[in-house]
Each structure stands twice: as C-alpha cells, then as structure tokens.
C-alpha cells in the first residue's frame, strides 16, 4: 500500500465501505423477498468480497462479524415478515390460498387444516396467530431498526441488537413449545411431518446465536 495522509485514508475507507454496502443492501433486499433469493445471494457475496478486499488493503471498514450479523438479522426479519404479513393481511389472495395451503399440506398442518376459518383468516392453528402478530408487529420491525443502527456502528444499535436477539430467543422457544404441545394434531395428514418442518425452519430459529458475540464485543467500537 502506498503511504497516504489520514484524510485520504478516511476518504478511501468511506468510499470502499459505501461501495460494498450498496451491493450488500441490494443483495439483502432481493433475498428478503424470498422468491428472488437466488438472484440476491451472488450480489450479497460480491459485497462481502469487496469488503474483504478493502480490509486486506488496510482500509478502516466495518468489522466482518458486525456486517454479517447485521445483514443476516435484517434478512431473517424481512423473510419472515413477508410470509406472515401475507398470512395476516392477504389471507384471501389467490397466491396465499394456493401457496400457503400447498406448503402446509406438504409439511405443516397449521397452514392447511382450517385455513381461513377463524374470524381473522389465515393460519388457524392454536396460538399460531398470536405468535405471528407479536413477531411481525413488535419483534421484526424492532429487529430491522436495531440491525440498521448496528451496521452504522451506533451505540443504540448495539444495545437494541442485544434486546432483539434475546426477544428472538423468547419468541422461538415459545413458538416451538406451543406447536409441540399439539404436534400430534398439527402434523396429522401432511406429506413430510416433523423432518420436513425442521429442515425448513431450522435456519429461522437460530438468530440468537449472535448473543455471546454481542455481549463480549468491545463496546467502544460503537459510537454515541
């Protein structure tokens, strides 16, 4: 690396960070739509590649762990919000009535039996609606806001990431305990009971993996 002044170094770093973030944001938005996921992944990977390149060139960019955790949390919240948002607000749309019930019939009877038969519409499994509403109204918006602050390396972003990751733990423990209590009913008559459900959902239920990192990362790198 050629020697450069501090100002020049900061300018270069900021430009590299912005360039990488542009790819990372577009990739995450594409993957967040669920159906465009295969298009979003290579775009996201290019962002990661640019960030790594800037890092090894000695520029001051955001640490890789912060970048990965922040974007994955946004992605997790976005993907869940789309599916469950449709279940609440568009449960009589043709796409919801066909895709959701077909998917339910495949691996989760909670989205097949008595679908659209409660007063509120959508999934009719016991307790399911309560978890859906608390997640898309409280947990996921909070999670996306926290992750944005976290990616901007703000103090409040770090603090709220800790809050939202603990909330994620409560939400998923509660959700899985709830569905297991009547699993004998929920899986009745579906094509791939238990194994199909766990294979599909295992990636959703692990956002609290970041908790030890968040509690032990050097807090001074996040500014007020």
């Amino acid at each position, binding site marked *: 690396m050629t020697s450069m002044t501090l100002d020049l170094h900061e300018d270069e770093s900021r430009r590299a960070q912005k360039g990488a973030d542009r790819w990372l944001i577009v990739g995450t938005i594409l993957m967040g739509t669920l159906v465009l996921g295969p298009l979003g992944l290579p775009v996201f990977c290019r962002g990661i590649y640019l960030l790594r390149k800037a890092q090894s060139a000695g520029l001051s960019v955001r640490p890789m762990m912060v970048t990965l955790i922040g974007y994955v949390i946004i992605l997790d919240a976005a993907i869940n919000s789309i599916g469950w948002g449709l279940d609440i607000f568009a449960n009589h749309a043709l796409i919801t009535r066909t895709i959701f019930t077909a998917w339910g019939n495949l691996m989760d009877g909670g989205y097949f039996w008595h679908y659209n038969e409660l007063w509120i519409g959508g999934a009719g499994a016991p307790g399911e609606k309560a978890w859906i509403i608390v997640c898309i109204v409280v947990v996921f918006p909070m999670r996306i806001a926290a992750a944005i602050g976290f990616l901007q390396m703000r103090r409040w972003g770090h603090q709220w990431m800790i809050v939202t990751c603990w909330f994620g733990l409560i939400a998923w423990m509660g959700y899985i305990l709830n569905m297991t209590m009547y699993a004998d009913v929920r899986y009745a008559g579906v094509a791939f009971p238990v194994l199909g459900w766990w294979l599909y959902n295992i990636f959703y*239920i692990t956002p*609290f993996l970041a908790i030890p990192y968040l509690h032990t990362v050097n807090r001074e790198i996040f500014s007020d």
Partner: protein
Amino acid sequence: MTAKPPMSEQDRRRRRALIVFQIFVYGCLIAMFLIQLQMLFVKEW
C-alpha cells in the same frame, strides 16, 4: 487488520456463561424435536 485487544476476565466469564445458557436453550429445542420425532414413529399420520 488490527490485532484484537485481549479479552478481560469478566468478559471471558460472561461469554462462558452465555455459551452454557445457549447449550441449555438448544437442548430445549432438541428435546422438542425428539418429542415430535417420537410421535413420528408411533403415530399413523
């Protein structure tokens, strides 16, 4: 990349406690999975 600052004893203990707690939480999730798996073997779905 700059070298990581050494982790304090307090942080080390905190991280260990959090990892132990996570093992407990994952244990609970695995228990739920095993309960469902047991149903898979005995029920005629």
